[in-house]
């Protein structure tokens, strides 16, 4: 599984910043395109997993590595994780209209939307960096972005939206709408945003974008970015930041 030289450089950078090795491995049943598990609890290294068969492997791995780099670029005292207490989780479940769902399902969905809050907000920084600094991966990046855009469009189907409560659907769609807006502009295909605008998400896009633009693109400000996005998508009080530890 040879990775592109620029990806190998990123691996080295993570390893230097964190003093832990990086392992990249396939995982057939992975739901996401790729994930990263930082090294902790005695794990020998950071693990980047990806779904096999992806033609965009280098980009997928690079983007996961960039998330790690942003974490380890910050001084140890300023690194953080997102967690929810039971009270916060209940608050989030109520805010997202998930009260009528079985608790395990409601917990899974609230956890999922908080993950999206983190991966989309910081993900824009990550993708922007890759776009500007790794032109050799641009083709792969564009293919993956287009694939994500198509997936987000599919989620607009009435059959999909009616399965979930409106606050949750709106939180998800607002972030997807910003994704369509920013990538539509970058790819010169503003059509991606038309369905979202038609559904009234222009205001949310403007709010999220304003925060994204106002917050400095500095890993030390990633936490602030998430904090400021949370009220826009209705997730105020549904989580808190705790210091990052390797335990």
């Amino acid at each position, binding site marked *: 599984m040879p990775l592109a030289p620029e990806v190998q450089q990123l691996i080295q950078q993570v390893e230097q910043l964190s003093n832990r090795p990086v392992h990249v491995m396939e995982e057939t049943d992975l739901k996401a395109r790729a994930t990263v598990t930082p090294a902790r609890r005695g794990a020998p290294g950071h693990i980047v997993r990806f779904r096999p068969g992806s033609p965009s492997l280098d980009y997928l791995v690079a983007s996961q590595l960039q998330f790690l780099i942003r974490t380890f670029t910050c001084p140890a005292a300023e690194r953080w994780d997102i967690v929810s207490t039971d009270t916060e989780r209940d608050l989030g479940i109520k805010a997202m209209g998930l009260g009528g769902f079985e608790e395990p399902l409601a917990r899974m969905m609230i956890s999922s939307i908080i993950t999206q809050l983190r991966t989309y907000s910081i993900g824009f920084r990550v993708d922007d960096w890759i776009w500007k600094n790794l032109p050799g991966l641009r083709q792969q990046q564009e293919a993956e972005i287009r694939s994500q855009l198509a997936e987000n469009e599919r989620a607009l189907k009435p059959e999909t939206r009616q399965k979930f409560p409106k606050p949750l659907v709106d939180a998800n769609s607002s972030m997807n709408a910003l994704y369509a807006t920013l990538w539509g502009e970058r790819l010169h295909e503003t059509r991606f945003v038309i369905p979202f605008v*038609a*559904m009234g998400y222009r205001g949310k896009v403007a709010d999220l974008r304003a925060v994204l633009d106002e917050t400095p693109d500095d890993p030390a400000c990633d936490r602030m970015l998430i904090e400021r996005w949370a009220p826009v998508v209705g997730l105020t009080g549904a989580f808190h930041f705790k210091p990052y530890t390797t335990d």
Partner: protein
Amino acid sequence: MPDTPHDIQFPLADFDRSLLPEDQRELLGDSYLQAIREHLIGQFVGQGGAAEVAVTHDRVIIRWKESDKAESLADQGANHLKQGNTDKGIATLRVALERDPADAAALFNLGMSLVEARHVGEALELLERLVAIAPDYPSAWVALGVAQGSFGEIDVAIQSFREGLVRHPQDPFAHKNLGAALSQSGQLDEARDHLKAAVVLLPSDAQAWLNLGMNLEQSGVTAEAETAYQRVITLDPGGHLAEKAEAGRNRITQIKFRNACGALRPDVLTYCGDAIRVFETMPQEEVQRTTLEIAMLGAKGLTVNDPSTKYQLRSLPGDFTGLHLLCIEYVGFKIIDPTVDIGFDISAEYAEACRLRGQPQ
């Protein structure tokens, strides 16, 4: 990924009504669905492909197909206008200008279409912006002049047409419109030069020929005016321009007719007297049949100044001159419908003929 269609669907209930024009936000039923459809089609114009939009009772379905052969938004808008889809054309051009306020083609075409739609104030703003941004854009000054003329500012319009000619001396529309505007402001001689240039450059433009005909008629150059009017009738048979040309020809014929014999023409007096006498003994239906037969014949053109008896009727025996038939028609309409104006004034002869027959008019 060209030519790969894909569908996007979302619930109709989630559509944001506030995106529609104000007068469409309260629509219901099929009109509402149609308004959404048109709005979304407009949004996808100029996106490098084609969108088909269907709106059902519960969802909006967009089928998007990318294409390499995308034309600009302004071109698409102009094409809609050419195909007579005015609303769609205007909507498309507005989107083009939202994306690029300096799009000269969009400014020009939207400005012109708004003049035609009688939104002259907005048209003026757009066309003034156009000449400021792209003063050499073909026919930009002409379009501005047309808008100014529609606003009643003939002198300002003339200045714009002149500016257009300075930049494009062979612009036929600059000559055509400058000639028309000068004629309107009474500057007939200078106008005629431009109108003659216009018909050379636009030999199939009926409006240009009509403008020239009217100028020549006003200037008393009746033979040339008749030729110009005849050209209009040939180019626009049955159209409203041909009607105007026909009216012009009739005016000229009457002038000639009056000039030929002074106040009362004895031949017309005789024809009117004969017609009154014949119609006196006829049932109303027969008068109507004869009158309408002549009217139908007259639609193809009666030569009033030709003395030869070359016309026959099914409803009356004999051979007739064009003038004779016209007199019968005039008298016939006085009986069946006096409000009809046949476009030829022989009222003095008719009045005298009535007086001689001891009849009220």
